[in-house]
């Protein structure tokens, strides 16, 4: 196929602008949706990874259930997606907590007890949040600062004091510094003695907003709620950050031993958390992108449709071209060139539009999509392939037209 075909094709397309724009629209929409979805996914991934990193890669999380499959070297092979989002199911017992706290090389450790259900303050009910029972070391473990007041200390673990997330402060008390206020949890009054700075990450799992949490001493929560506030996580940090891997497997082995050899707990390093989260996000993004890619196929069918119409509308033209000596191959190439020009143009416009949409998303929402070049290149390659694939059938149809029949039409 030589360049002349493309010039002619470009001209033909320009002359039937309306039809061509409609055709290209399919391709443009396809590319915009694929590129936008993938770049949104990338943006969210980048954000989440940043958040997970901010907690420190040596944080060790222990939770119930078997969430990952490891190879003989201890590297993660397979991940249970349940482990990424929310609190998950399954609980740990006090012995597990004791094992983590007692392990050699642990600097800080805390169980996380979870109590769901509403709390009352000022006679108002607050149902959006949840209560977490922790040790005094929690702010250290999560590297989270207190904005007002302070976290409870080792001496206060039995007292009914609470530290609250920023959202709780705003929604429950409609003020920033509700120190000294009272929250009623299960009929017990807790006095607010601190407010956290805004949490920018979700270290306990995606979708868990700690700004909506009410933090109370774990022993006190156990006392008032009992089994209603089970241990859902144990967090620990090693004395030596480089020792995190060893410590994690040591903890894992000890718990396994205490469970009679049952491998029913998962110990994850924060770096592994990162891996788990990003793999799930990649899968999700890929899945949605695949759905969006269907629109590329629809765009291709649009091209085929328009080309088929164009072939039958241009029967006379094909007849004349054949009469002056066009071979079947030359006719086929002409129509193929049109399909290719249409899809390449659609591709270019689609990529351009993707950047525009990307910009609009950044400006109008707090999402920050990231367009990566491989995605753009793949979208472009796919759009051209779509053009070629779906342009072929009409082109072959055009090439096979009998010149006599073609010349007779409407004569």
């Amino acid at each position, binding site marked *: 196929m030589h360049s002349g075909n493309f010039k002619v094709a470009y001209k033909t397309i320009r002359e039937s602008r309306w039809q061509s724009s409609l055709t290209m629209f399919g391709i443009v929409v396809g590319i915009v949706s694929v590129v936008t979805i993938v770049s949104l996914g990338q943006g969210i991934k980048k954000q989440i990874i940043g958040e997970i990193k901010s907690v420190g890669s040596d944080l060790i999380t222990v939770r119930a259930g078997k969430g990952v499959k490891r190879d003989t070297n201890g590297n993660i092979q397979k991940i249970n997606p349940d482990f990424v989002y929310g609190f998950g199911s399954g609980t740990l017992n006090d012995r597990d907590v004791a094992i983590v706290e007692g392990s050699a090389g642990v600097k800080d450790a805390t169980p996380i007890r979870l109590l769901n259900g509403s709390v009352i303050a000022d006679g108002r009910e607050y149902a959006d949040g949840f209560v977490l029972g922790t040790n005094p070391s929690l702010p250290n473990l999560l590297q989270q600062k207190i904005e007002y007041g302070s976290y409870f200390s080792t001496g206060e673990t039995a007292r009914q004091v609470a530290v609250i997330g920023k959202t709780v402060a705003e929604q429950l008390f409609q003020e920033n510094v509700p120190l000294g206020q009272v929250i009623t949890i299960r009929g017990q009054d807790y006095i607010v003695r601190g407010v956290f700075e805004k949490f920018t990450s979700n270290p306990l799992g995606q979708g868990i907003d700690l700004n909506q949490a009410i933090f109370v001493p774990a022993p006190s929560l156990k006392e008032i709620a009992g089994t209603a506030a089970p241990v859902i996580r144990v967090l620990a940090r090693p004395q030596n950050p480089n020792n995190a891997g060893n410590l994690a497997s040591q903890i894992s082995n000890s718990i396994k031993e205490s469970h009679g050899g049952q491998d029913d707990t998962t110990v994850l390093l924060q770096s592994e958390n990162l891996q788990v989260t990003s793999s799930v996000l990649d899968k999700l993004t890929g899945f949605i992108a695949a759905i969006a890619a269907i629109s590329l196929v629809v765009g291709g069918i649009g091209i085929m449709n328009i080309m088929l119409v164009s072939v039958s509308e241009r029967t006379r033209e094909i007849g*004349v*071209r054949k*009469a002056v*000596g066009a*071979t079947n191959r030359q006719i086929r190439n002409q129509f193929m060139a049109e399909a290719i020009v249409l899809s390449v143009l659609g591709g270019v416009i689609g990529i351009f539009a993707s950047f525009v949409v990307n910009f609009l998303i950044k400006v109008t929402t707090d999402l920050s999509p990231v367009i990566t070049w491989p995605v753009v290149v793949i979208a472009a390659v796919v759009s051209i392939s779509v053009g070629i694939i779906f342009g072929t059938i009409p082109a072959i149809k055009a090439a096979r037209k009998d*010149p006599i029949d073609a010349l007779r039409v409407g004569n």
Partner: protein
Amino acid sequence: MPIISIKDVSKLYGFGDATTVALDEVSIDVEAGEFVAVMGPSGSGKSTLMNIIGLLDRPTHGEYMLSNRYVSKLRSNQRAKMRRDKIGFVFQSFNLLPKLTVLDNVALPLMYRGVSTVKRLQRAEDVLDRVGLKDRQYFMPKALSGGQVQRAAIARALVGDPQIIIADEPTGNLDSASSLIVMELLSELHRTGNTIIMVTHNPEITRYADRVVYMHDGCIVHDQRTPVGEVPALAKKAMYVYPRKTEEDDLAGVSAMMDFRPEKPSTKKRKAKAQAKRRKAAKAKRSADA
């Protein structure tokens, strides 16, 4: 050595009871440099013959030799290439592609030969000059008059220096003034040595030809050489035969034709049958047109 040699060529359409004999064992030789006018009633197979000579179509039976090469069995690709290199077509209507300029239309055959853009536009401009349309080269076809379109079509037929120019009713849609200009142009080409085969319904126009062939029901019924500038008596007579507007006219025309045409006795019966079929087809066509 004739440039075109056709021997016992038949063209059948359809099959079984519905078979139409468009050409019935036609034989004709055309020498290089001849200007052949082909006459005959509608449906007599003139266009079919032109399409076969012009390699747009293949005969069902028979041999066709074009400049010393047997071409009746060629595949469509080889036919396309020979057509491109040896034949120039002028049709009655829809000659030019409406979306290309006159110049691009004329240059089209050269594009399919792979001639470079500059060269083919140059060459197209030259032939447009020759047909007197140089000042119209950048026009779109719809801005041209009917006569100008036909002249542009002739320019396109000429652009590749073909051995044969085939014109199927080139003046069929033109008024007499435009016809005159187009015919003068073809005549000029004839004088400069081109071989032209032209279908016409207008006997006046046969004066430009040096040979007139009469067709009827897929057969060549008469073939005569005439001096250029003269309208042969037979053609004049045929003037009263065409155009036929009604079925009665049609029948009258056919019988008039049958009166004077030299009969091929052996085929009489088959002819009658074919005629009946053709009349039916013609009637169907008219009602479809209406």
